[in-house]
């Protein structure tokens, strides 16, 4: 069974960058979300066992998504992939229960290591 994975980012280029960086052998079913609201919809409809989450997005930003998931004790594994890499963003993301905070531009090797640590590959 492929793992349901959602990539939430308002930038088409960045969603493509995530898709390109995914390990080719990893069997996934990918859903794309352009904002935080779409990301939450994907979570609620069971399409996001793993959520790759951008922070700066319209409608609802990544912090809002994290807060909602945190408050609802969601089991989704969230990997934040952000252009805002300042210490304050990382602190907030950590406090909201994200599994990992990766920097843009995303490095395929770093993503692979992260997925390995979670036991997904």
């Amino acid at each position, binding site marked *: 069974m492929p793992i349901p994975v959602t990539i939430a980012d308002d*930038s*088409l*280029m*960045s969603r*493509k*960058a995530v898709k390109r960086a995914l390990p080719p052998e990893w069997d996934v079913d990918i859903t794309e979300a352009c904002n935080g609201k779409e990301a939450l919809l994907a979570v609620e409809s069971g399409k996001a066992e793993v959520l790759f989450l951008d922070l*700066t997005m319209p409608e609802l930003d990544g912090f809002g998504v994290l807060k909602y998931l945190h408050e609802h004790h969601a089991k989704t594994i969230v990997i934040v992939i*952000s*252009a*805002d*890499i*300042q*210490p*304050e963003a990382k602190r907030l993301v950590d406090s909201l229960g994200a599994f990992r905070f990766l920097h*843009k*531009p995303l490095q395929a090797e770093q993503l692979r290591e992260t997925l390995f640590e979670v036991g997904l590959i």
Partner: protein
Amino acid sequence: MNTLLSEDQRDALQELMNISMGQAANALARLVGAKVTLSIPRIVSVTPLQFAEMLNDTDVWYTRQSFLGHIRGEVLTVLSKTGCDSIGELMDYEVPLDHDALSELLLELANILAGACLSGFTEQLALNAKLSMPTLFFPENQQTVHVHWASTLMMEVEFKVEASQFDSRVVICLEDIAVDTLLQALNRLLE
């Protein structure tokens, strides 16, 4: 120029700017130990005349740097006069800043911001460009502003250090000839 960029190319360019400016903001945040906020990048086409008009604000300092390589152009860093002492203090300068210390601070800030912006930008596009050292620029001392391009794609972002009431804008101007190279590199990222 706006019509020259497809919606996807504009999105990609904006995201590349976000990423490289994020790196620049992080460099500055670590240096001053305070949070730095960023504006959404603005991407427009400008003529030399419009460029010259940007250079008549007396509330700011200006530095200019040129870059050469796969893409070429210049980087203008605009730094607010307010907040310089406060930033200087965070960066261990003796305040109030005297003339020499102020120049040094402005050039240091320009180098950090413009350097991180441009290197982040070109690395992601797998292009190379070498940035010259910044020099302070005083538009009021110039009769005309000399630029060596006819029209340009301009990318601008604003940094704010709210704790210090300081803000800065980095403006990257690409020479016309570099725009094609840029578009090709963008298309590779969108494949």
